């Protein structure tokens, strides 16, 4: 079911509605603005997960001399805290972003098949 996007249904931090008649400029598509904001959130999540996971595993999981093997819930502890916990955390963050942050923007109407509506256009 497509949800119709209200022109004010934009992330508050990026909303900026301009009148077309005043500025003469076209209004940026709300889906684009929301998608860009959400993409930055996703990138931040990605980078945070990468930095934490790789750093933790490098510090505690790479073989130094006389390293004692410790376990947490059956996993080597460095795997549990360096991979399993971040994985669960990312799942939670993904859930929050997808259900509560991402906007249900309308994808818009579908264009007619370009090959039915235009003359043939060879290279």
């Amino acid at each position, binding site marked *: *079911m497509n*949800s119709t996007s*209200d*022109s*004010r249904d934009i992330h508050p931090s990026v909303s900026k*509605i301009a*009148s*077309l008649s*005043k500025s003469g400029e*076209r209004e*940026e*598509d709300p*889906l*684009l603005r*929301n*998608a860009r904001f*959400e*993409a930055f959130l*996703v*990138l931040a*999540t*990605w980078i945070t*997960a*990468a930095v934490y*996971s*790789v750093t933790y595993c*490098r510090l505690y*999981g*790479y*073989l130094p001399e006389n*390293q004692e*093997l410790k376990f947490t819930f*059956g*996993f*080597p502890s460095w*795997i549990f805290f360096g991979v*399993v916990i971040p*994985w*669960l955390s*990312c*799942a939670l*963050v*993904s*859930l929050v*972003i*997808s*259900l509560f942050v*991402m906007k*249900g923007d309308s*994808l*818009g*109407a*579908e*264009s*007619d*098949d*370009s*090959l039915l509506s235009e003359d043939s*256009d060879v*290279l």
Partner: protein
Amino acid sequence: MFFNAMNLKLMHFELLAAENQKTGVGMLLALIAFIVASVWLGTLAQRVVKRSSFVKGFFLGNRGLGAWAIALTATVQSGGTFMGFPSLVYSHGWIVALWIGSYMVVPITGFGLIGKRIAQLSRRTGAVTMPELFRERFDSPILGVLASVMIVTFMSFMMIAQFKAGAILMKYAWPGTEIVSFAEDAPIKGFDPMFLLGLALFAITVVGYTLIGGFLAAVWTDLFQSVMMFLGILLLVCLAIPAAGGLEQATRTAVVNTGPGFAFGPGYAPDGRAFLPLSLAISFFFFWPSTGFSSPAGIVRIMACKDTNTIRHSIFLLCAYNLGIYLPLICICVCARAIVPNLASTDEVIPNMAVYLTKDLPLGNLIAGLILAAPFGAVMATVSSYLVVIASGLVRDVYQRIINPQATETQLKRAAWGTMIAVGILAVVCNIQPIAFLQAIVVFSTGCAGASFIVPTVMLCYWRRATAHGVMAAMIAGAITVLTLYAVGFAGGDPMIGNATAFRPYFLFGIEPLLWGVLSSTIAGTIVSVFTRPPADERVSKWFDKQPDELPPTETIVA
């Protein structure tokens, strides 16, 4: 006393491993069930295809995919999930969890970075294929052709390898056949009539149901095998951990069997190589999500989604699915190292575990067969998806665009069928005498495809100033960079890092070639875009601004 008992147990496991497990009737029955289910799904899909125009129905499922279909099929897990990846865990140990760790962000990156924009743009342009999306967005037929050629080339290599994997699986389904290796680069010795028979049967089955149902047939069979794989892995992990005496004991036993490197980074390797040094650990945290969100097969699925809510729901469904696949699979393979420590070929790990762990269960043979049929299903689904993408590229972007723009629906249907049959025959012919280093070529093709399309896809979605020439430069630069690094690596010696393969890249500064490909793609795409004529404002506005028929009534515009 405990040590002696453990030694006896290990000896018992080794004897089992030495025998190599044999398949039973169960696997054959399970494969037959998979094939029947796939053909049935293909027939169902055909009914949906008939509801609208052939092109949109056959290649895009009428843009009606729901969250489950998108989530469980967007990443298009191949047989590699069940064969190559377990082999790595068995070989190198717990460090592979970090190697695959970036799958924790694959759901959110796969859908959250570009999902909504791709879905929107494909509707605004009316695009049915990825090359068409590029063509319409940048108003460049040449760009469309370039994208089409690249996609068809890369995916053809990947698909041909999957045909071989499918043929091997069919061959070993015959009762009493000894499981040797399910690897795509498993050697085929001389003239092997069972392999050729398996190849023919596999080709007829997959091409057949894809021909009938098109994109939806590919998606639904992918969904079906994804569910089977999930259930199979869940069952295996519940059996494997107790059999190994618990996960902690499994690790301790595996360390005894191999060395301390099995439990630590950079991973265990008898030849002393570092499987995952820090540079590669960083690289692979970038690699998997990047190749995921830019893969042509994945993007087509996003184009086919129903609405934005489908994309949102797909994210958490895929999160749950990945959690249920990858971490349990790692646990199974660690247990395998304890239970069957000396497998001749590490690709045998899942088949051997499946047969061994279920042999005492009621209907154990059938259960093992269903588990072993999961990689078969994965291979079928991958081939089917690639067939659709390749056929759509050739039919829509070459035949309909260039050769016969006035083509009727009947002509398009015949062209699609003809293309799929031709591609299937080509794949069979190429596998009669399989190319040496085929698996290596597959890996290289995957890297090239990723490096070619990551940056152009982002440019397509978010950069107004991007030009057709800039995008072409980005595609070519990415592909050439990866190609060059592989060529240098092939000519040079073993760097003793990463996976031990015959055809390996040159790891410049220890970094995966894909990253260099993306860097060069970014530089080339940016510079060429900036120094070429900007696209027409009106054209750009169509893709980036609110369209006139979507404007709210004037009284709701805030002054």
